[in-house]
Every structure is written in structure tokens, then in C-alpha cells.
């Protein structure tokens, strides 16, 4: 790294280069993950014969004829699960830096995070007890 420092890059440029190089792996995984489902779809488009008939283009619903409008109102309970997800999603934001710096933080941070998780765990327990997680 020292050798690179003297090769005419500013420290700022160097830091950016390090961050990009570190996360380039994630980028590669992302590209691979996107390619895998796209490749068969694109290949199928060119390989398959295309002879559409009205029946083939109809909405497929377990072999029955489709009834009513495609747009229906979803059950409101899905929204509650979404809200619960959002709350525990916010919790993850705090867990992430804690996990990254876990080696430097020591026992004190472990206890603090345990308290944090216990308080939120109480919320989950409450929701469970009240039957909010039951499907109605």
C-alpha cells in the first residue's frame, strides 16, 4: 500500500480505490446472480417456437377460466407483517456496525447489544402473546 501511496495518487483517491476494490467482489456476485436467471430467459426467447393462440395467451389459473379482475385488494394483515419487518429491519442497521467492530468493542458492547435485543425481543414476545402473528 505504501508503494502505491508514492505513485502519484492522492490519499483520497487511494481510499476510494480501496473501497471500490473491496466491494468489487460483491459487485461480481451481483452480476453473476443477475446473469443466471436472465440467461435462460433470453436463450428461451430465441430457441422456442412462437405460435400464440388466444387460449395460450389467456391468464393461467390452475386450469380454470379466470374470473373477475386481476387487481384485488390484498388482506390487510399482510401490511402488519410488513410493518413488523420494517421495525426489525431498523434493528439490523444497528447490528451491522456492532458486528463489524465486534473485535474492538469488547464485552461491554456485547452486554449493551444484549440489552438492546432483549428490549426488542420483548416486543416480539408481546406480539406473539397477543396473537398478532396468527393468521386470521
Amino acid at each position, binding site marked *: 500500500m505504501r508503494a502505491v501511496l508514492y505513485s502519484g495518487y492522492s*490519499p*483520497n*483517491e487511494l*481510499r*476510494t*480505490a480501496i*473501497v*471500490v476494490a473491496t*466491494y468489487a467482489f460483491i*459487485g461480481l456476485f451481483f452480476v453473476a446472480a443477475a446473469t443466471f436467471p436472465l440467461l435462460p430467459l433470453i436463450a428461451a426467447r430465441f430457441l422456442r417456437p412462437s405460435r400464440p393462440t388466444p387460449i395460450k395467451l389467456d391468464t393461467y389459473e390452475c386450469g380454470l377460466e379466470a374470473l373477475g379482475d386481476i*387487481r*384485488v*385488494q*390484498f388482506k*390487510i*394483515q*399482510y*401490511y*402488519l407483517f*410488513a*410493518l*413488523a*419487518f*420494517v*421495525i426489525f*429491519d*431498523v*434493528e*439490523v*442497521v*444497528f447490528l*451491522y*456496525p*456492532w458486528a*463489524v*467492530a465486534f473485535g*474492538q*468493542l469488547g464485552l*461491554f*458492547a456485547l452486554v*449493551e447489544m444484549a*440489552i*438492546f*435485543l432483549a*428490549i*426488542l425481543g*420483548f*416486543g*416480539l414476545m*408481546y*406480539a406473539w402473546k*397477543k396473537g*398478532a402473528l396468527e393468521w*386470521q
Partner: protein
Amino acid sequence: MELVVFILTALIALFGAGAMLISRNAVHSALFLLLNFGAIAVLYLLLQAPFLFVTQLIIYAGAIIVLFLFVVMLLGAERDDQETDRLAWQRPVALVMAGLLLAEVVYVFTSGVNIGAINAPAVADFASPEAVATALFTRYLFPFEVTSIILLAAVIGVVVLSRRATHDHAAVATQATDLTQLSERR
């Protein structure tokens, strides 16, 4: 290399934002917004802010998009009814405001007004997850624990509201027809 990554992600971000505005289907709009959020996250990475990168993905690309999609599906807002613009005055006002904002941005970048923060070099470990964690578990320990109480309040709030909603629906269902209208209004 960084420049290539920046131009690519910036183009993807712009495409996502534009497609979100143009798309007639609200679900497609939300998914284009997801694309935009993802590209913005990569831009944070280029600004040497890995913590913001992860937070952007978890909160915006995760939680916010999930809420958007659920609200769209629950309200049935993805309907494309081609109805007339009820807030017709909004379009010209929005155009004027956007023009003003654009003029301001151009002025700031061409006139050489000193915006210190842009040119100042970042502190060595600024916004790294380690730095955030150190600050969180030393100086801001109390606010951190208070956050858990606030989140707890949110969990309980969700449960209480949902319980009341389902109770109301159950009660209404067993009542006479005049009360069914009440539930429909809800």
C-alpha cells in the same frame, strides 16, 4: 476505473428515476425506485461511505420499498384508470419549482461559491462501520438504548392497532346490515 463505475451507476440511477416517473403501473414504479436506490447505494460506496451503502440497502431498498409495495397492493393503487388530472395546477407549479432548483444548482457550480464541505477531504475512517460502532457504543450509548425503547413502542403500536382493526371487523361482521356499511367505509 472509479469513473467508469460512477458513470455506469449514475446512468442506472437516472434511468431508474426516470422510468419510475414515466411508468403507468405503480408496482413497476416502485421496482424502478428500487433500482434507483440500489444505484444510489453504490454511489455512497464511491464516496467512501460503506456504512451508508449498507444502510441505504437495508432501509431504503428493504424497508421503504416493502412498505411502498404493500401500500400499493393494499390500496389497489396500481390501477391505471387514465382519469383526468384532478390536481391540474400541480404540473406547472412543479415545472417552475424544478426549473428554479436546476438554476440554483447550475449557479452554485458555475459561480464558484465556496461550499466548504464539498472540497474538504474526508476524515480517514469517516462513516466506516467501525467508526460508527465506536461512536455508538461510547458517546451515544444512551441514545442507542433509547432507540430500542422507541422501536418497542412501534412494535406494540402495530400490534394494538391491528388487534383493534380485526376486532372491529369481527364485531361488525356479526352485526346488522347498517353496521356493515361502517366497515365498508373503513
